C-alpha cells in the first residue's frame, strides 16, 4: 500500500470514528456454559467480539481457547470433547479480553442408546427428508410428517408400514432408508448425506440396535436456543458461526449446531451453510432461523455497508420501550425523528386514545400550557374517558364479529352482547379474564350475553379458527386439510384445538331469540386421516386431562394463564399496533414463524408488561403513549425515510371509518344520527356491523363476516370521490351550520377561519395560509360561502383525514 492510499484510509477512519458511539469492546462466548453428558457428547464454541463501534465479529479462529484442567476435557479447535468426569473451565482470550466458561463432564465412559425422537428425527429435518416426504400424500410412496411433527407415525411408517422394505435389521447398511439417502439407490431427491457423515452414522447406529422405539419416559425436547440472539455485521462476505443448543425436560442440554436446520428469510443479506456458518451479503435485515424438533427459533441479523458515517443523536429515552426501540435503530444506523410538536401530539393522542378530535378549547389551551408534565397529564386524563372504552369495545366487537344474522342473531342479542362487552371493558376486566368468560360462556344468551359467542357461529371448525385468530393471533386455517406449509401447525394440532369446541351444546329457548349454550359432554374432533378422535391439545402445548370437565373451561384456564405463550404477546401487539399504526408482528393476527416480529425484544417486553399490569389495556397504553417512540414526529430524515417497521418516526395512517365519520361530524359541530339509533350515538358506538351507511362501507368498516384484521384503512378512489362530492361532508357542514352561527355571534371572518383550522386540523393557519385566505374575504356578500368552502377544503385535506 503506498503512503497516499494509507493516508486516505486513515483519513476515512478518522472521519468515520467520531460519529460512532463509543463503548468498550465486549467478548462473548456461545454457549455461556457447557455440559458434556456422555462419551459421544461434544460442544462447539463460537467467540464474538462486539467492537467499540457496535459491529460484531466472529473471532473464534483468532481467539485462544484453553481448557483449564486438560484431564477433564480436550479441545479440537473450537470443539470441546469429554475426557473424565468433573468440572473445569474453558478459558478464552482475545487481544486482552478474556472469558471463562464453566464446563461439566458427567459420564464420559457411557455410550448412550440411540433415540428415535432425539437422535434420528433431527436427521430427517437436517437432511430435509420431510420437506418432500412431508407433503400431505408423501413423496414416491413414502410419507413422513411435515417438519417431523408426528414422531409416532414416522416411526411406524419407517419400521412397520411396509415391513421389510424401508429397514433391514439383518443387514442395516442395506436398509432402503440409508441406501436412498447416501446415493446408493436411486432417489428422486438425490443424495442427502455421505456414508461418513454424522447423520448416516446416527441412523446406522439406530438400525443396528434394532430400530427400537423410544422408552415411554424419554426426556422431551422443551426448547431450543439459537445464539447469538442478534447480530450486527459490517460489509459483505463476513462470516459468523451460529450456535444452537437444545434443552430437554430432564434438565439436560445438547449441542445441536450441526444437526439443526438453518433457514434465512433473506439470503441476499445473510446466508447460512448447513454447519451453521452465516455469511453476510448486501445491506439489510435478515431473520435467520434454526429448526430443531418442533421448535424454530430465529435471530435477527443486520448487515450494514462498510464505513457508514453515523452518529447516534442521543435522543430522549422516556422508558424501557424507547431503550428497546433505540437499540434496534442504533444497529440499523438510523436516526430517529425528533419529538412531535405539542399540537400534533394533542391530536394524535386524542385520536388514538379516544377516537375523537381534540375540542377547540383544548387546542388553544394546550399550546400555551407551560406545565412540563402536560403530556403525561393529558394521557392520564384521556385514558379515563368513556370514549376510550367505546373505541376498545369497537375493536373487540370486530374481533368477535358482532353483527345481526337473519334468524340467528337478532338485534336484541347483538345489543345485549355489545353492552355486555362494553360493561366488561368499563369495569376494567383484564383481557385474559374477558377471553376466558367468552370461551366458557354457558346458559341462555338472554341472561348471559357472552353466550352469544357460541350462537353467532355454530360450526366447530369456524369457532376454532376464529378463536385462534382473534385470541391467539394465529391463522390455523391451512392445517384443517394439510399441515401448515409456513408454520408449525399440523392437522393434529388443528383437531387438537378444535376438540375443545366439539362439546358445545346449543338448544333453542322459548323466545326465538334465545339460545342456550351448555356442555354437551360428547362430540369429538376427528382426524381427517384415519377418522380417529384427536384428544384436546393446546396449540404448541400439552394434552390436558379433560375427563369429566367442560373442555372449554380447560382451554380458558390455559388461555388466561399468565404463562400462556401466545395470549399476552398477541394482546400487547394489538395495543401497540393500535397506538403506533404498525404491529411488531404485522399483520397483527398472523403470528407465524415465517412472519417474525420486527423487534422481538420489544414484543417480549410488552408481553411481560401486559402480564405485569394484569392485562389492563389502559396501563399498557399509558406506558406506550409516554414513550418518546410514540411521540415521534412523522417527518423523516435521510436515514429513516424507508423505515416502516422500526418506529424511527411516527406512522401516518388514515383514521378508521367510524372515527373519521365521527370526526367529520365533530369538526362541523354536527351531531351524528344513525338509522334506527338515537341522535348523538356516534359511529364508534354502533353495535351491529349491519347498521352501516355508504360512508362507513366505503371507508372500509369491518363487515365482521370473518375475523380477519382487515386492512381497514386502504385508500380507494371511491373514498376520495365521496369526500369531494358525496353527501357526508356537505350534510355535516349544513347540519352543523357552524359558519352561520359564528357570523351571527359577530365573529370576524379571520377568527372564524382560525376556529375552523383549530377544529378540523387542530392547529391555527400558518401565516402564509392565513395571508392567502384573507384575500378571499374582500367580497363581503360571499363571507359565509367562502368560509364554508374553507371548511370543506379542510375536511378534504390529508391533514384532516390522516392521523399523523
Amino acid at each position, binding site marked *: 500500500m503506498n503512503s497516499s492510499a494509507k493516508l486516505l484510509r486513515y483519513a476515512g477512519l478518522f472521519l468515520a470514528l467520531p460519529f460512532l458511539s463509543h463503548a468498550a469492546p465486549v467478548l462473548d462466548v456461545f454457549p455461556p456454559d457447557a455440559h458434556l453428558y456422555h462419551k459421544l457428547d461434544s460442544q462447539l464454541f463460537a467467540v464474538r467480539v462486539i467492537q467499540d463501534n457496535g459491529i460484531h465479529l466472529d473471532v473464534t479462529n483468532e481467539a485462544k481457547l484453553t481448557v483449564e484442567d486438560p484431564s477433564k476435557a480436550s479441545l479440537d479447535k473450537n470443539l470441546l470433547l469429554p475426557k473424565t468426569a468433573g468440572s473445569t473451565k474453558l478459558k478464552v482470550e482475545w487481544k486482552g479480553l478474556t472469558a471463562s466458561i464453566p464446563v461439566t463432564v458427567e459420564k464420559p465412559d457411557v455410550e448412550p442408546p440411540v433415540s428415535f425422537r432425539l437422535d434420528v428425527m433431527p436427521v430427517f429435518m437436517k437432511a430435509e427428508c420431510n420437506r418432500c416426504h412431508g407433503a400431505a400424500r408423501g413423496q414416491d410412496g413414502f410419507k413422513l410428517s411435515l417438519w417431523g411433527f408426528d414422531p409416532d407415525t414416522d416411526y411406524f411408517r419407517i419400521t412397520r408400514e411396509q415391513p421389510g422394505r424401508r429397514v433391514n435389521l439383518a443387514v442395516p447398511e442395506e436398509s432402503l432408508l440409508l441406501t436412498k439417502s447416501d446415493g446408493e439407490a436411486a432417489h428422486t431427491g438425490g*443424495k442427502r448425506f455421505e456414508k461418513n457423515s454424522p447423520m448416516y452414522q446416527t441412523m446406522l447406529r439406530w438400525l443396528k440396535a434394532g430400530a427400537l422405539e423410544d422408552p415411554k419416559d424419554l426426556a422431551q425436547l422443551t426448547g431450543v436456543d439459537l445464539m447469538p440472539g442478534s447480530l450486527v455485521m459490517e460489509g459483505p462476505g463476513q462470516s459468523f458461526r451460529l450456535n444452537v443448543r437444545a434443552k430437554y425436560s430432564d434438565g439436560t442440554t445438547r449441542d445441536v449446531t450441526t444437526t439443526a436446520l438453518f433457514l434465512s428469510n433473506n439470503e441476499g443479506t445473510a446466508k447460512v451453510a448447513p454447519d451453521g456458518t452465516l455469511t453476510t451479503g448486501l445491506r439489510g435485515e435478515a431473520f435467520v432461523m434454526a429448526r430443531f424438533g418442533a421448535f424454530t427459533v430465529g435471530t435477527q441479523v443486520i448487515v450494514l455497508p462498510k464505513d457508514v458515517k453515523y452518529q447516534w443523536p442521543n435522543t430522549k429515552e422516556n422508558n424501557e420501550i424507547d431503550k428497546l426501540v433505540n437499540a434496534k435503530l442504533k444497529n440499523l444506523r438510523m436516526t430517529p425523528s425528533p419529538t412531535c410538536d405539542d399540537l400534533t401530539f394533542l391530536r394524535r393522542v386524542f385520536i388514538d386514545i379516544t377516537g375523537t378530535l381534540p375540542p377547540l378549547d383544548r387546542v388553544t389551551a394546550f399550546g400555551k400550557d407551560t406545565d412540563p408534565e402536560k403530556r403525561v397529564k393529558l394521557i392520564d386524563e384521556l385514558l379515563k374517558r368513556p370514549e376510550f372504552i367505546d373505541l376498545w369495545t369497537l375493536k373487540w366487537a370486530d374481533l368477535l364479529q358482532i353483527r345481526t344474522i337473519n334468524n340467528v342473531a337478532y338485534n336484541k342479542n347483538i345489543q345485549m352482547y355489545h353492552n355486555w362487552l362494553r360493561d366488561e371493558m368499563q369495569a376494567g376486566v383484564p383481557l385474559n379474564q374477558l377471553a376466558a368468560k367468552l370461551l366458557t360462556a354457558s346458559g341462555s344468551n338472554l341472561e348471559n350475553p357472552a353466550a352469544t359467542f357460541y350462537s353467532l357461529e355454530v360450526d366447530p371448525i369456524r369457532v376454532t379458527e376464529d378463536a385462534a385468530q382473534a385470541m391467539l393471533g394465529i391463522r390455523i386455517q391451512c392445517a384443517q386439510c394439510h399441515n401448515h406449509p409456513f408454520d408449525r401447525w399440523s392437522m393434529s394440532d388443528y383437531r387438537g384445538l378444535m376438540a375443545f369446541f366439539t362439546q358445545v351444546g346449543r338448544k333453542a329457548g322459548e323466545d326465538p331469540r334465545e339460545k342456550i349454550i351448555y356442555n354437551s359432554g360428547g362430540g369429538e374432533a376427528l382426524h381427517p386421516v384415519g377418522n380417529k378422535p384427536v384428544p384436546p391439545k393446546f396449540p404448541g402445548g400439552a394434552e390436558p386431562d379433560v375427563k369429566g370437565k367442560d373442555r372449554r373451561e380447560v382451554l380458558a384456564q390455559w388461555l388466561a394463564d399468565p404463562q400462556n405463550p401466545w395470549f399476552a404477546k398477541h394482546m400487547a401487539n394489538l395495543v401497540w399496533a393500535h397506538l403506533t399504526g404498525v404491529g411488531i408482528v404485522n399483520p397483527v393476527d398472523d403470528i407465524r414463524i415465517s412472519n417474525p416480529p420486527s423487534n422481538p425484544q420489544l414484543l417480549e417486553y410488552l408481553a411481560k408488561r401486559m402480564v405485569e399490569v394484569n392485562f389492563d389495556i389502559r396501563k399498557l397504553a399509558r406506558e406506550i403513549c409516554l414513550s418518546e417512540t410514540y411521540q415521534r414526529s412523522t417527518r423523516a430524515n435521510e436515514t429513516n425515510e424507508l423505515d416502516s417497521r422500526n418506529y424511527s418516526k411516527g406512522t401516518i395512517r388514515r383514521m378508521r371509518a367510524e372515527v373519521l365519520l365521527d370526526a367529520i361530524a365533530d369538526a362541523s359541530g354536527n351531531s351524528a344520527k344513525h338509522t334506527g339509533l338515537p341522535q348523538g350515538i356516534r359511529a364508534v358506538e354502533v353495535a351491529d356491523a349491519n347498521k352501516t351507511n355508504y360512508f362507513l362501507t366505503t371507508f372500509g368498516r369491518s363487515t365482521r363476516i370473518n375475523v380477519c384484521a382487515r386492512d381497514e384503512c386502504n385508500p380507494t378512489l371511491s373514498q376520495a370521490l365521496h369526500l369531494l362530492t358525496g353527501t357526508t361532508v356537505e350534510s355535516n357542514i349544513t347540519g352543523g351550520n357552524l359558519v352561520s352561527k359564528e357570523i351571527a355571534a359577530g365573529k370576524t371572518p379571520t377568527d372564524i377561519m382560525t376556529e375552523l383550522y383549530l377544529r378540523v386540523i387542530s392547529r391555527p393557519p400558518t401565516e402564509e395560509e392565513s395571508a392567502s385566505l384573507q384575500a378571499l374575504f374582500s367580497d363581503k356578500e360571499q363571507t359565509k360561502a367562502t368560509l364554508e368552502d374553507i371548511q370543506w377544503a379542510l375536511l378534504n385535506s390529508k391533514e384532516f383525514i390522516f392521523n399523523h
Partner: protein
Amino acid sequence: MRTPLVLLGTAAFALQAAAAVPEKVTFEDHVLPILQNACNNCHNPDKKKAGLDLTTYGGALLGSDGGKVVLPGDAAASLLLKCVKGTEEPVMPPKGDRLNANDIAILERWIATRALESLNSKGAPVANNVAAAAVSLTRPSGPPPMPGKLPTGPVVDTPHSNALIALAASPWSPLMAVGGQKQVLLYHADTLELLGVLPFPEGLPTILRFSRNGELLLAGGGVGAKSGKVALWKITNGERIATLGNEVDQVLAADLSPDQTTVILGGPNRLLKFFSTTDGKLIRTIKKHTDWVTALAYSADGAYVASADRAGGITVWESATGAEALTLPGHKTAVNALAFLPGLLVSAGQDGTVVLWDIAEGKERKKWAAHVGGCEFVDFTADGRIVTCGRDKVAKVWDQTGKALLTTQPLTEIALRAVLSGDTVMAGDWNGKVQAFLLADGGKPFGEVRVAPAAK
C-alpha cells in the same frame, strides 16, 4: 491382531480409490452400475423421462425424444456425456450429487471405444430350462417333490433378523420355504429340519410361491429402489432354472402360471409384467394400478390372474389376453395378499378384513374381520382352508364360512406371513422369528426355524 485388519482395510480402500478406468469398458459390466445409481430412477422404461430408457443397452443406444444420446466412437459429441459433465443443459442428474470424475471417465471411454455391450457379446438370451406342466386341480400322481441333497450352508448369516416377509408352503409336500437375506431356506414342515439353502444373490426375497404341482419354487425380490428379479428353482435338485425380469425396484408380488409358461410380476412401478419362462422375454405390460402392486395370483386353472394394489384395488385379468375381466371393490386401504382356489379368490386387506370373492359371479361372497390393525397375509391350502395373520400378532386358520378353526398364541411382533402345511401352521413376525404350531395343539408353538441357517 487388530493392526493387520486395519491395514488390510486401508489397502482395500486405497485400491478402490485408485480404481482406474478398465481397459475394456462394457455396458453390462461398467456402465450399467453407474446409470443404475445416477440415472435410472427417471430414465427407466416405466417413467421414461424425455423418452430415454437407460436401463438397457438397446434403450441407451436408441436415445431420447431429442435424438441419440450416445454416438459410439464420438464421446465428445454424445449428449449423455455433455449432460453429466454439465457442459450442456439439462445438467444431469438434476438433483443430488453429480457423477464423479472416474465414473465420467468410464462413460467417456465406453463411448470412445464404440460402446460395447458386453465382454463376450452374449447374443440372444439363454434359453431357460423350464418345461411346460400339465394343469391339474388335483394332487399330482407320484411322490410329492422334496429336495434331494442340497447345500445347507448359509449364504449370509447375521446376528439380527429382519422382518419375515417371504414364506410359502408346498401344496402337496411337507415343505416350507422361508425368505432370508439373499437366500431362500427350505424346511421340512413336520420335523422343522433344514433341507436346503437356495442362494438369491439378487437381494431380499419379498415373495415366495410354489408351483401348483409343487415341483418348482418361485422367489421374487431384489434391492429396494435398485433392482428386481424373479427366480425359479427345481425343488428336487435345487437347480436355478430361470431368472426373469429386469426391474429398477424390488419385485413385491409375483406368481407362476399353473402351466409354468408365464411369470407375472409387479412392484412399486405399478405395472404388471408378464414374462415367458422359456425365453425370458417380456410378453405384456399392463398399466392399470394407481399404486404399488402388492399381490398377484393365478387362478387354479390358469385362466385368470388377479392383481391388487396398495390403494385397495383388485382386478382380475384373462391371463391369455391380458383383458380386464373383473374389478373387485371391497378394500378401502391396501390389499396385502391374494390367493386362489377353483372359482374362489381370497384377499387380505390393511383394513383388517378377509374377503372371499366368487369369480364366476364377480361378487363378494363373504367378508369378515380377521385381524385388528390389518390383515397382512392370506393363503389357501389345497383342501380349501384359509390361513391368515396380521397386526394383532396372531395367525389364524379359518374355514370358508369365516369360522376360526385356530388362533395361535401371539407372536413376538406383528405377524407378517403365515402358511399351513398339513397340520402345521408356520408364522413369521416383524422380529424375524418364525414359529411352528400344530392345529391340534390349540395354538401353542412347538418349534422355531431360523431365517438364516447357522454357520457351520
